[in-house]
Structure formats: C-alpha cells, structure tokens
C-alpha cells in the first residue's frame, strides 16, 4: 500500500476492466513520474466525456451528433440491420467492410444472473425501426456465448411475425488456423454449418 493520493490513483485504475493491480500501479507511477507525459489532456477528456458523448438516436452506437456517422451515411443500405451487443462490435464488423447496411446496438445481452432482461436492452427501439417496411433482413450478431445465444433466440422469436428474413452469424473455424488446434465445440459447430461446394 502506498500513501494517500497515489494509492487512490492506483485504486481508481484498478477498478477499470482489464487492469489488474500491477498494471494499475505501473500506470499510476508512469503518470506521476514520466516527464514526457502530460496528464492534463487525459484529465480534461475524462472530466467531460460522459456529458459530451452521444449515442445515436437511431441505432444506439456512439456518436458525435444526434445520429452516428453510419446512420447519416446515405450510401449505407437501408434494408438490412445488423444487431450487436456493444458499440465495439460495430467497430469490429466495420473493419471487415463486408457489411453495408446499418446497425442496432442492444447495449448488452439477456443475463438474469446479472439482472439484465429484455427491458434493459434497446429492443423497443429495434421494433420501432422495423415499422419501416423497406427493411427486409435482420442479422443477429450477438456474441456466440450462452447469453448471446439466448438473446438471439429471444429476438428471433420476437421478430418471427414481422415477415422479415432473420439470420444469425455463422460459427466456425478461424481463418488461417490449424484444424487440429480447433476446440471441439468450434469444430462441431463448423461441421453443423458446413457448406456445399
């Protein structure tokens, strides 16, 4: 334990996801001691980030305006919506440049243990968007874990009567990997989802 304010700083970093006690200590000492690093930039951003950040009123993605850059972009296809758990999933899918539709960020996945139910997610807003009859396909891209699967199952049932095509991202082998090192669950899924050549 260090004294006073330094320990407070370490504790604050330690509360952040992905930062353990050692990293928290390293970052704190770097901020305190490094001559080349100016913590004023970080502190001014941190002071206003929560007030200045906006979430797109359409899709829930992080935005710098009322609507995010993707929802504002007229070149994006309006007939496909890709449903994801978090804004960082949008970034991941955007990197592929495969998808030209728009997104819908749920803000999490259904998990009773964590007290998260459908009402805590942006599902009502999704239903609202689907009133637009030009939308023909909803892609469920929630995480391939238990909570993500349950959320996808829930949404698939909820949207079944909308007359829209509902699809789920495929699970399978990582590209560039070795078959022999794939875990059994992934390999089993890849078999289930095999495609005809």
């Amino acid at each position, binding site marked *: 334990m260090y004294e006073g304010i330094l320990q407070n700083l370490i504790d604050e970093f330690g509360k952040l996801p992905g930062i*353990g006690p050692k990293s928290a200590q390293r970052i704190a000492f770097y901020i305190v001691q490094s001559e080349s690093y100016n913590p004023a930039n970080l502190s001014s951003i941190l002071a206003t980030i929560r007030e200045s950040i906006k979430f797109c009123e359409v899709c829930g993605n992080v935005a710098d305006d009322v609507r995010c850059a993707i929802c504002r972009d007229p070149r994006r296809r309006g007939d496909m919506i890709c449903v994801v758990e978090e804004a960082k999933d949008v970034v991941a899918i955007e990197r592929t440049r495969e998808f030209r539709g728009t997104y819908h960020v749920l803000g999490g996945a*259904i*998990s*009773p*243990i964590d007290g998260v*139910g*459908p009402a805590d997610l942006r599902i009502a807003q999704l239903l609202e968007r689907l009133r637009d009859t030009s939308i023909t396909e909803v892609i469920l891209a929630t995480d391939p874990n*238990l*909570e993500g*699967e*349950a*959320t996808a*199952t*829930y949404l698939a*049932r*909820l949207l079944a009567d909308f007359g829209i095509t509902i699809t789920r991202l495929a699970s399978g082998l990582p590209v560039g990997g070795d078959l022999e090192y794939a*875990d*059994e*669950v992934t390999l*089993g899924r890849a078999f289930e989802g095999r495609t005809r050549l």
Partner: protein
Amino acid sequence: MRIAGVQLSAWRNYDQQVAVFDSSPTVLIGPNGQGKTNFVEAITYAARGKSHRVSADSALVRSGHTEAHIRMRVAHGERTLDVDVVVKSSGSNQVRLNGQPAKKRDLIRLLPIVMFAPEDMDIVRGEPQARRDFLDDLLALSIPRFAGVLADYDRVVRQRNTLLKSLRSAPADADLSPLDAWTENLIVLAGQIMRERRRIIDRLRPDFARDYIAIAGGDARASLALVESLGDAVDSAQIEERLRELFHVKHSEERDRGTTLFGPHRDDLHIALNELPSRTHSSQGEAWSLAIALRLAMVDITRETSTVGDPVVILDDVFSELDAARRERLAAHLSDIEHIIITAADSASVPESVGGMRYLVTGGVMTRA
C-alpha cells in the same frame, strides 16, 4: 500416460517440493494430515483445473502466500507435455501447456486421470449429485468436448433459475418470452447430455458388472439404470420434444418453486446389487466394492477412448478401506496400468505385490523411502 515429475510451490502445506517419478507404482506413505492427499490433489488440479475437495481456490494456497504453482511433466511414449498452473488465492488462475496459455477445458483430453478416494462411497450411498458428478466426469473423460457442454448447461440452468425466481413475484400475465429463450437453449444442451449419458451407461454396464465380481468375488449381479426426470422411458430421438412439453405444462410450478424441474441436473443413477438398491441395501463391504467397480469401469472406458495412453490412476487412501482379499484383487486388476499413484497411512495396507517406489510424506515434505 505417466507423470514424470511434479514441482509444487506454496501449495497447501507444501513450501517447495520437487518429485521425480521414473517408475510405477508410486507409493506415498505417511500419517494422516501430513500432505499425501494434498499432493495428489495438486496432480488432479493440474489435470482438471479444479480441486476435487474444495470449490474456493484460496484454500489451496499456503498461508502467507498469494499464489501457488504446480508444474507437472507428463509423458506418453516419447512425447512429453509440461503443464504449468498458477493458482491465485483471489482472481483467476493461469494454465500453460508447454509454455503456451491454455484453457482449463483443454486439459482433460490431454491429461486423463481416474482417482479412487474415500469420498467415492458417496456415489453409492450419498445424494444423487455424487452420482451425476461421476457420470459427468466419465462423459468428459470419454468425450472431451463434453467438459464444455456440461459447464454451459450448468450456467444455463443457473440463468434460467434466476429468471424463474424473479418471475415468482411477477404478475400472472408477465412476459414469459425471455424464459422461453432460455428454455430453448437449455433443451438443446440437455438433449445432448441426456443422450450421451444413456450411451455411456450402456457402455459402462458390462464392465461394471464384471469389475464388481473381479473385486468382490462371488457371482452377485451389479447393475446400473438411469432414472430420468422425464419420467417413463422416452425414445432418444424424442428427448427434446418431451422436455419442451414438460416445460410447457409445468411452467407455473417451476415459477412457484423458482427452479428448473426437468433435465439432466435432476436425473439419478440407480445402482443395484442382485436387483436390490445399493443406496439402502448394501453392506459397507459391498458398497466399497461397488464404488471401486465404478471407478474401474471408468478406467476401462478411458483406456479405450484415450488418445494419450492409459489414464493415470490414483488410489488415495483406498486400500485401508478394503479387506486383504479385495486389496489383492484391486492391485492385480490395475497391475498393467502404466502409472498408478497410491497413498496410504500404513504401508502394511498396501499389498506386497504392488511393489513400486515408496516415498515418505511428513509435514509437507516428500522424501524417497
């Protein structure tokens, strides 16, 4: 497969311990409370990523330390594998295989271990949970993928139960569609587990009956039957359909009780000797022979399915529970296993015929006898 060496630091009552095993069996002798079981627990921990005795890792780290290390080298023919596990008293532990980060669920297929322990008596006489645990261990050993399926199922049941509890206080017309989503995912996993349990019990049955006679002598018929929460025998292809039906019909009862009433977590294994239920009708000696026959059948099945040779067989304080004739039969039955590790408080309880290298364990220190 055999264990070539183990290195422990700050594990249970061990400070620093290096043990090299170049032959089988390995016999650990020492009074109770000196660290014999702690040592074999380290081996099973490195092979499973969990303890068979405690659920919280904090008990595994020597007092005054924040983390314990287990390093273990296993060998199968010319191939060796180094397992390196860091157990932290708080926070998640780390597993490395040959220096590369690995997941706990990868361990079971690379390090098959069958352990016989005094707690095995619970499989015969204890609560259904002990028998389900036995079946699940056996499933994971014979189909490594199932370690993950079982863990997933466990989590889905917990999620669903939490939801059922929260619905208990909800109005009668509450939206049940989130429950339906969990039910559907639970059914998919339950179906896989139940089908595989049926298959593995069919496979276990003849070995179990034969192994019982091999240990107990005589000609008593030891038998196994799965008792499923589904009720009357349901065809394997119809498990999912039947579950769906039950969950539909019984959902208000489930909400009242706040728990999932059907599925493999509610099943039991019925063990009988000459058609009499062993849980209530077996003598102490019979119950021990049944427990040992179950573990031996587990060894048989694991030997057939393993890709890395025999499982390592650990007999933790088991000989002392048996009479001389059963000790000899058990030792004879396991004599061709590649590596057996035996612990005993009294070296006289280990049959002479076992031979092997003996070690003394006192106060968390192991030395060659």
